[in-house]
């Protein structure tokens, strides 16, 4: 039968429709693809986008908060309100014994009022002749809006400063609760019962607090502080407009005794002209600032103005206006010096970085956000093992529990040996022969972090130094290290062999191959316990070890991480565990097994070194009466037999360690 037109199936689309159909198909395909792509969401663990800290708000309200330190009044002083003292002894008939408050008087209808220690003044001189008191006029209360003015000094590069000038003011309120009504308080919004005002600087207010402006003279004093700085700025005009009572005229700004031409800090009173770092002297070499006799412009080098008062300001590698000595990131301009994760605070514990006397960075700390490889995660060391620009601390997508602090992340969990350190709240007192509470490690995260780093650097990362044969060259990149920080729930390294981990640890850190509880030293006259335990041979394991003795740490890790067996002599299965831990064991159940130990891809053993575990090196005999039916090969001092810094893993030990490295992840 032949085909003909009648037999030809009717095409479901005419030929002219082909192009539109193909177009529809293409659109469908694109929709399919693009919607798929659109469904993807950013992965966890990505660093958050950089944020900019907003500039200070020019107008703000400040609430002064009292910081009471209660004292007990010494005799013959009595604790009372100032008003009570006035009523009892008259205005000038008493003195205040101490600056600190001794209590607070409260009432149902008033705010708490501070009480102080007062005593009657003993008058021994003849009474002074009576003069009628001067007629005074109570100033009409003036209400000022609290304004903080950002003052921009002459050059745009110079830092901004904030001066807070006025505050709401009422004569019958003791806003700062220091016992003095605002009308009699030289600093009504800051707790200063002593009314210290020796230098008149900021009218007696503690540094950083807000001065009142009760009268025109004080107003003028305050005004002079700002006028000189704000004269050329629009902020000044805005301030005057907002504060119609503020004139500030008639004052000069030479209250610190230095004319501007000689003043190393023109905008802030600094009578002593202190310049701790001596950078004013350096600046005198710059004709743009110093003409040989006087300053041509504000040098801003006195301590009062100095952004880095204790360091040489002439070195500013990134030209961000912050001298290197005070710059938490010298290679990237970061005038704000923001340090979100407070790495810099931690790094100030490290004398290699921070000079705590001079209060300057000795070397670039790289801890400001601009340099920080993980700006939002604690990582003062800025470790970035895989060199991808993202620090290890924020490269751990599996560290979902906030108590896990990644320190060194070389790869994904599963392909690396995950070791997490946990602080112990106990130590062992050898003199009293009992477990004692010790908070050395579990109360200060910087301290414990330092201990962890020490054990990584001088323990695990020196595995090559502790090995008589080469370990894999990249052995450091076979580990991930973390520590677990929950001061409310520390571990106990001593209540059983291997210790007890904090509750909740298991579900928080399911991925760990080894949890190592580090305990602090308890030094006594009879010695310091420095032993350890493991709850298994090979990982996953729970280990206890001293935080101060890396040979023991490596010995216990030999058990718990690498599956090595003790090579010292003790009673088998009574004092310790012996077994032939194939493959690549370091102990055998027979001499023939030792001598015929398979080489595999690793180094062959020297069969002549196979010996009973009782055969101690004659030079260092140990347990001479001990003899057990297990065999070993590695020479002494062996890490699995001795725990001091001269110990080494022998060939058998290194073979096993290398085998374990090569077996991650196991099939």
């Amino acid at each position: 039968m032949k085909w003909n037109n009648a037999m030809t199936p009717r095409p479901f689309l005419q030929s002219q429709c082909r192009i539109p159909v193909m177009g529809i198909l293409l659109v469908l395909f694109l929709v399919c693809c693009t919607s798929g792509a659109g469904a993807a969401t950013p992965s966890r663990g990505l660093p958050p986008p950089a944020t900019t800290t907003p500039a200070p708000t020019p107008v703000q309200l400040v609430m002064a908060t009292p910081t009471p330190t209660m004292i007990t009044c010494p005799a013959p002083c009595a604790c009372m309100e100032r008003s009570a003292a006035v009523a009892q002894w008259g205005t000038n008939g008493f003195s205040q014994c101490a600056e600190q408050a001794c209590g607070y008087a409260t009432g149902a209808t008033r705010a708490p009022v501070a009480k102080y220690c007062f005593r009657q003044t003993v008058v021994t001189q003849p009474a002074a002749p009576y003069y009628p008191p001067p007629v005074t006029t109570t100033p009409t209360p003036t209400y000022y809006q609290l304004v903080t003015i950002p003052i921009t000094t002459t050059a745009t590069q110079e830092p901004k400063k904030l001066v807070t000038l006025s505050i709401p003011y009422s004569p019958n309120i003791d806003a700062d609760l220091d016992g003095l009504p605002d009308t009699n308080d030289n600093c009504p919004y800051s707790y200063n019962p002593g009314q210290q005002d020796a230098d008149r600087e900021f009218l007696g207010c503690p540094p950083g607090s807000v001065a009142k402006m009760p009268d025109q003279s004080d107003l003028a004093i305050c005004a002079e502080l700002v006028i000189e700085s704000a004269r050329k700025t629009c902020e000044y005009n805005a301030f005057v407009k907002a504060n119609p009572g503020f004139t500030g005229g008639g004052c000069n700004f030479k209250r610190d005794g230095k004319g501007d031409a000689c003043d190393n800090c023109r905008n802030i009173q600094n009578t002593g002209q202190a310049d701790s770092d001596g950078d004013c002297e350096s600046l005198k070499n710059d004709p743009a600032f110093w003409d040989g006799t006087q300053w041509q412009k504000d040098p801003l080098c006195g301590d009062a103005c100095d952004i880095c008062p204790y360091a040489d300001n002439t070195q500013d590698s990134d030209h961000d206006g912050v001298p290197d000595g005070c710059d938490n990131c010298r290679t990237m301009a970061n005038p704000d010096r923001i340090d979100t994760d407070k790495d810099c605070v931690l790094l100030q514990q490290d004398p290699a970085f921070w000079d705590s006397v001079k209060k300057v960075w000795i070397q670039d700390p790289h801890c400001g956000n601009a340099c920080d490889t993980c700006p939002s995660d604690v990582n003062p060391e800025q470790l970035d093992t895989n060199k991808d620009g993202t620090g290890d601390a924020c490269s751990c997508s599996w560290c979902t529990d906030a108590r896990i602090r990644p320190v060194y992340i070389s790869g994904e969990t599963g392909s690396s040996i995950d070791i997490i350190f946990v602080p112990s709240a106990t130590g062992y007192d050898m003199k009293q022969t009992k477990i004692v509470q010790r908070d050395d490690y579990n109360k200060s995260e910087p301290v414990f972090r330092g201990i962890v780093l020490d054990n990584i650097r001088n323990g695990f990362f020196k595995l090559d130094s502790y090995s008589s044969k080469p370990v894999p060259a990249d052995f450091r990149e076979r580990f991930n290290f973390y520590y677990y920080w929950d001061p409310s729930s520390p571990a106990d390294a001593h209540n059983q062999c291997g210790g007890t981990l904090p509750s909740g640890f298991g579900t928080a850190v399911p991925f760990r191959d080894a949890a190592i509880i580090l305990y602090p030293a308890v030094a006594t006259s009879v010695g310091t316990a420095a032993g350890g335990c493991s709850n298994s041979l090979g990982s996953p394991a729970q280990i206890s070890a001293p935080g101060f003795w890396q040979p023991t740490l490596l010995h216990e890790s030999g058990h718990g991480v690498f599956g090595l067996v003790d090579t010292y002599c003790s009673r088998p299965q009574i004092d310790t565990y012996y077994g032939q831990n194939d493959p690549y064991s370091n102990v055998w159940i027979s001499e023939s097994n030792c001598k015929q130990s398979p080489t595999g891809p690793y180094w062959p053993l020297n069969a002549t070194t196979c010996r009973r575990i009782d055969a101690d090196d004659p030079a260092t005999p140990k347990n001479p009466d001990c003899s057990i039916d297990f065999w070993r090969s590695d020479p002494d001092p062996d890490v699995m037999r001795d725990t001091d810094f001269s110990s080494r893993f022998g060939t058998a030990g290194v073979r096993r360690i290398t085998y374990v490295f090569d077996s991650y992840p196991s099939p």
Partner: protein
Amino acid sequence: MKQQIITGTAAILLACLLVLPAYAADGTDYSKVFFIPFTIDENNVTCGQVVLMYGHSPDLGLQSGTFRGEIAESGAKTIRSFAIWDPRVRFGDTVVKRPDGSVSGVSGILEKTDRADLTVILPFSAASGTFNLYDDTGVLVSSVDLRPAVSAFCSSNPKDPDCSRLPLPLPALIGIVLVVIAAIGILYYRKYRNKGITVDKNQ
């Protein structure tokens, strides 16, 4: 021509299949572990509540021991077997740093207890049905059904890809189905149209 069409259609389908993972792989880590708590008291082994939770497991293949763990499918086929250390045995070492800084010799500590807790953490696999624990004599001491833990997890996390019966979003499925239907239609059309033209030419 026919070959070109087939090749083109196959390419489209392949491209769509390659796109599919984008729906499931939204960047979220859906790794899960079975958390299996055992208590061993004398020779009695009891299992607490098994939990399936998000997380990663430790490496299971490098622990020595006389116990043995076995992950099996629901049909009893063994997926994986590995050694487990007897948790009743812990061993350690006594070391003393003397006041003069020297270190004592090492002596051993072996703690054996009758009662101990053992927590086994397994990586999740949809095929896992049972976990079997064998003691040092090779006797099966506990067989744990893992499926209730999966059900409990899925009731709490219905959108987890391992729980979802429809892993792909509906629009994606519709799009893919349409593309497949269209591709088949084109093939059908091309095939018979070409045959029709041939007939015409013969006439």
